[in-house]
Structures are given as C-alpha cells and as structure tokens.
C-alpha cells in the first residue's frame, strides 16, 4: 500500500521518479529486434542472462523485444521507469532521442544508450570498437584471398558500418596491395534471404572471402557452398567452423552490464561515454581456425596484441580519403570524434557511401 501511495505521489509531482525502496536492483532492456535474432539483439540478451547469472537474486531483469524506434520506444522506457526499474539499457541507435526524453522525466533512473552520441546526467552511452576486429578480419582476408576480390555485405550505412569497411580495407590492402573490395548494401540489419542473395552475387563476381555486417548466418552458408571463407558476426557462429567461418567478431556486453549494474547497487553510477574494444573484452575475436595458415594466424594475433596493448591504432596515417584528399598524416591517429561520425570511404575503395 505504501508503495502505491509513493508511486501515485511520484506521478502527481510530474513523474518525478519511481525508485521504490526495494532490495532487488531492477534492470530493464529495450531491444529493437527479437531476442532470438541470432545477432545484435541476441548478443545483448546474452549479456542480460549473464547479468542474472552473476548477481542471482540480487537483480531482477525485464525486457521488451521488437520495439520500433520512435514513440513506442519512449513509451516502453517510461513504463519501465514507472514500474520501478533502476537502470535501463536501450540497445539501438534509433532509441537515442526517446532515451533522452524519458531520462529527463526520471532523474533518479539511470539510462544507458548503446551506439549513440547524446548523453545527459543520467544517460550514459556505450559502444564497441568493432573496427578493431575488422582490422584483424581485413588482415586475414587480404592474406587468404586468391582472387584478390573481397566481398563485403553492408547493412545500414551508419558510421559504424562505414568505419568497419574502411578498417577492413586498410588492413587487407596493407598485406595485399592488389586487393579489391566489392560492397553490397542491403539497408537492413538482418534479412536472411537478401543476405544470401547478396553473398551469392559477390561470390559469383569472383569474391572468395565474404565479410558481413549483417546478422544472419546466410552469407556463411553461401560461402560454404562456394568454397569461400567468411567470418562470424555478432555471435561466434562456430557451427560453420573451421571453414567457411575462420574467425569472428563477437559482441560481448556482459562485462559492461555487470559493471554498470554493480555501480547502481553501490551508488557510484555516473554518466560515462564508454567506447571499448578488444582490450576490455567488449569486442571478442573468435578463435582463428586451422583453415588459416599458421603464419597468417600469427600475423593476425600479433595485430590483435598490438591493438590490445595500445601500441597500434587501426586508423593510423598516412591515409587519404577516397577522393584523394589527405585524411591522416604519416603517423597521425584518427581522433574518436572523426571516427564516430565517419561517413566517407578511404582511398582505394570503389563505389560511394550511399547518401
């Protein structure tokens, strides 16, 4: 009863907040896709399950899947906040403005928005430096290709995807100057049938390595049939190892979720702008299989070690933009601001970033 009165009062004072006196920490997740999409959303939900495992009875997690970006997201977040959720993770770029809107109404609830660039006192942002993993994929791809044609399935042309293409290309080119990239954009994060068709089109045009920024295993299945190789995306996709899947980029959000929830429990939570890579484990590199020759594997792992150690940054000059204008001078490293908003190709890539 007391709870109810408290809540009604909170509503009366203009949705001031609904932090109930509860011993359990309630953690909410808002997902853009279904939890069994095998990719992005499943990765986050895996993080949620790990969080439950880690804290046991001390946490309660709730989630809503298939939430369209826009007003529906705003409503879901508000309802979560109203029902006593302490911290809410919103896991799609399109949830950015809704997250900030809701956060402004609930100053006592903590919000964490994935992949965005706007934060507030109670809104932190977090994202992963997947381009570090792309550098390793590019190296393996550049060494492994015999046709010197690498196919790349792009999803939605946002900076993260463009960054990934650039990073993979730079490193493929580094180990194999003759390499050429063919890019197909499908404008969706996941559409298995379209991904399969795109992979086939790339393979037919001579690609023998497929990189993908889409979430389904369809491109791997196509690569398998054609005797080409590919990489797992978002999850390990180990079913396709040792070939065609020769390695993978794994989204590993669990450590971050555990850390941030702990901070809420300890009362030490504050807004941050996290952009972690391989070093903290947020970006996992799946086992490089024996389909990759030992020297190539060693080279890829050395690159990984250098990135982890911080001695090497995948975007290090000299680099030019596609049109030939200078991007980074010799030895210069791209700053995070430039990377975060990257929507141009580097020199040597053909085609255009769709706009």
């Amino acid at each position, binding site marked *: 009863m007391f709870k*109810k009165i408290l*809540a*009604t009062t909170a*509503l009366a004072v203009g*949705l001031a907040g*609904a932090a109930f006196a509860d011993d359990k920490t309630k953690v*909410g997740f808002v997902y853009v896709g*279904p939890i069994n999409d095998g990719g992005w959303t499943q990765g986050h939900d895996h993080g949620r399950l790990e969080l439950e495992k880690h804290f046991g009875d001390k946490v309660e997690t*709730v*989630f*809503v*899947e*298939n*939430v*369209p*970006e*826009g*007003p*529906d997201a*705003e*409503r*879901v977040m*508000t*309802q*979560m906040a*109203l*029902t006593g959720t302490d911290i809410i993770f919103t896991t799609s*770029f*399109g949830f950015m*403005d809704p997250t900030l809107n809701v956060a402004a109404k609930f100053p006592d609830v903590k919000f964490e928005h994935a992949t965005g*660039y706007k934060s507030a006192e109670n809104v932190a942002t977090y994202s992963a430096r997947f381009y570090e993993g792309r550098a390793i994929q590019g190296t393996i791809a550049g060494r492994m290709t015999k046709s010197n044609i690498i196919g790349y399935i792009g999803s*939605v*042309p*946002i*900076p993260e995807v*463009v960054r990934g293409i650039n990073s993979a290309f730079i490193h493929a080119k580094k180990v194999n100057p003759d390499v050429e990239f063919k890019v197909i954009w499908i*404008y969706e994060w996941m559409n298995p049938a379209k991904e399969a068709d795109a992979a086939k089109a790339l393979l037919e045009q001579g690609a023998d390595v497929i990189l993908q920024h889409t979430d389904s295993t369809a491109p791997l299945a196509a690569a398998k049939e054609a005797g080409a190789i590919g990489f797992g995306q978002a999850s390990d996709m180990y079913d396709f190892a040792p070939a065609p899947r020769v390695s993978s980029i794994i989204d590993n959000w669990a450590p971050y979720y555990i850390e941030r929830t702990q901070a809420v429990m300890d009362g030490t939570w504050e807004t941050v702008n996290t952009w972690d890579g391989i070093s903290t484990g947020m970006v996992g590199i799946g086992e490089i299989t024996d389909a990759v020759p030992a020297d190539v594997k060693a080279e890829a792992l050395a690159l990984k070690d250098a990135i982890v150690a911080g001695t090497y940054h995948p975007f290090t000059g000299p680099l030019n933009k596609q049109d030939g204008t200078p991007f980074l001078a010799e030895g210069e490293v791209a700053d995070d601001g430039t990377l*975060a*908003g*990257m*929507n141009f190709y580097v020199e040597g890539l053909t085609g255009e970033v*769709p*706009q």
Partner: protein
Amino acid sequence: MISLVKRPQPSKTWVVATPILAVIVTMILGGLLFAAMGKDPFVAIRTIFWDPLFNPDFAAYSRPQLLVKAAPLILIAIGLSLGFKAGIWNIGAEGQYIIGAITGASVGLAFYPMEAWYIFPLMVIAGALGGFLWGLIPALCKTKFNAPEILVSLMLVYFAEQIMISVSLGALRNPEGNGFPGSRNLAQYASSANPELIAGTGAHWGVMAAFAAVVAAYVLLSKHMLGFQIRVTGESTRAAGFAGINANRLIIFCLGTSGALAGLAGLFEVTGPAGQITTSFNTGYGFTAIIVAFLGRLNPIGILLAGLLLALTFIGGELAQFMLSLPSASIQVFQGMLLMTLLAMDIFVNYKVVWRKKEAV
C-alpha cells in the same frame, strides 16, 4: 440439424454484440494460450486489458498514451473504411502514411530554421496532399487501366519504403546528425512541432484530427449523397450502375481520401511522437488500421472504439512482455485471433441459425 438462413438485413443487435463477444472469446482463447505457456491467464489478461487503464502505478501515464497510439490507427482506418464499404481495397495505407510524412516533413525542413506560424499548417497540407497523390496512383491505375488497386497499392508500400530510406540517407538527412541517417528532429523545431495540446492528455493535433475524421465520416455516411453511393456500390456494383453512380469517381474519391488521411496520420506522427524521418520510420500503422477498420465494422464509431482497443492490446502487450515475460509474438497471435474470431462471428450478423428437421434441408 443446424441450418443457416440468410437474414434479409444484417441484424442490428448482432452487429453490436459480435465485437464484444469476439473480445470475450479471444480473451478466453488467449487465456488458454497463455496458460499453455505456463503463465497465469488471469494475470495476463489483467495486465493487457486492465493495467494500462487502471493500474494505480502507471495508468495515469498509459491512458493518454492510448490516444497517441490509437490516433493514427483511427485516422487511417476511417479512410480505409470508406473504400472497403464500396469494395475498393486499399491495403497500401502504410505507403500513403510514409509519403505523407515525407512530403510534410520536407516542407517543414525547407523552412528550417525560420520560425513562423504558417509553417505547421503548410506541412499539414503538404502531408495530406502527399498521401492523397500516393493514393491516387492505384486509383488512376484502376480507372484508366483496370489494374487491381489491392496489389498496386501494396507494391507502392515497398516503393514508399525505398523512398523513405533514400531521403533518410540523402535529401532530408540531418547535416548535424553525426553521420547517421535520418532527418532533423521536427518535434524539437518549434514551428513544425506537434506537441501535446493539453498537458497530460496525450492529445496532439493528430488525435484531434482523428476525432474530426470520425465525426466527418459519420455525417458523410449517414447524411450525404456520397455516403449513400458508397453503400450502394458496396452492396452491388450492378445496382450502383442502375442508380447512375459513377464508379470511377467513387474509386478516385475513396482512394484519394484514404490516402490523404493516411498522409495526415504520417505527418502528425513525424512532427510529434516520432519526431524524425528515419530508415525505419514506419511501424505498420497502415496495416494494423485494416484490422481496426474491420473490427470497427467499417462504422466510424466502431472504428473509434476498435482503434482504442487495438492500442490497448499494444500497450498492454508491452506491459505483459516485461512484467510477465510473454514473448512479443504472443501479442501478434492474440491480435490475429481477435480479428479471426470477429470474422467468424459475422455469420450471426448475416444469418439466422435455426434448427430444422433433416427433411427440410
């Protein structure tokens, strides 16, 4: 032996009774479904249908949200119902909704950052006009070439989606958007914003427009010649021909009007709740509105109630997801069952069920 006798006229009682019965039957079927999934059916039904309206913790918030969610559904469904009544199948309202949002938003963005009172009205006109023209395409294909409007309008949805992606990446892209696709936020630009008119009610201009559309459709259908023509054509094309009704004009009117209303819904959504055109701006209102139209018996008042009911299942469905961990698919099945049950019960409206001796058959 049960036998069906066609009623000379649809039963007025059953017209009203069947939707209510359908909701009850669906609740029972849904309850069984939830029970089969290991959830307490009573809690599930309460969470979906009761909590959004009366839960003391959050109903004060979710009640107004009902209007926000229902408004585009009602606005679109009213337009669709006119055509459906006359046997004109516009199932491409989703595309008209998208185009209305794009044309309306384009006008607003063309003025940015200038502030003026007339910008929003201009956007409203542009939105309605965009939807109208998009709806006119299947209409003209039908009247000039006899191409089936049901498929042309549907194909135009996919085309509109591609246009939406294209403008989110190109023409309407926010130059200050950090490299991300999507337009500027219209809700944060005073001259184009469509905010809540009375704080705490959820009522924005779209809600007002939806209510206005209900009234206008009611008057049109019951008092106006055009409404009569629509009804006659729906009952029999031949009779309509005898009555001297110009079928082509009716097609253009119905598709154009439903297009304009869907365009308006898109415009009010993009300027208010959604805020911006993105690559995933549309969320299926145009398709859900078809259910709303039928659930509401193609009657304006019915549609108003059906829109609110569907909105309730959406909002309650979200609650059920995070409070009871019901998967989102169960809500979809639930909505499908609701429509199916209602359609199944239509038999009572048009037929009398009688007992007869076998010989009589």
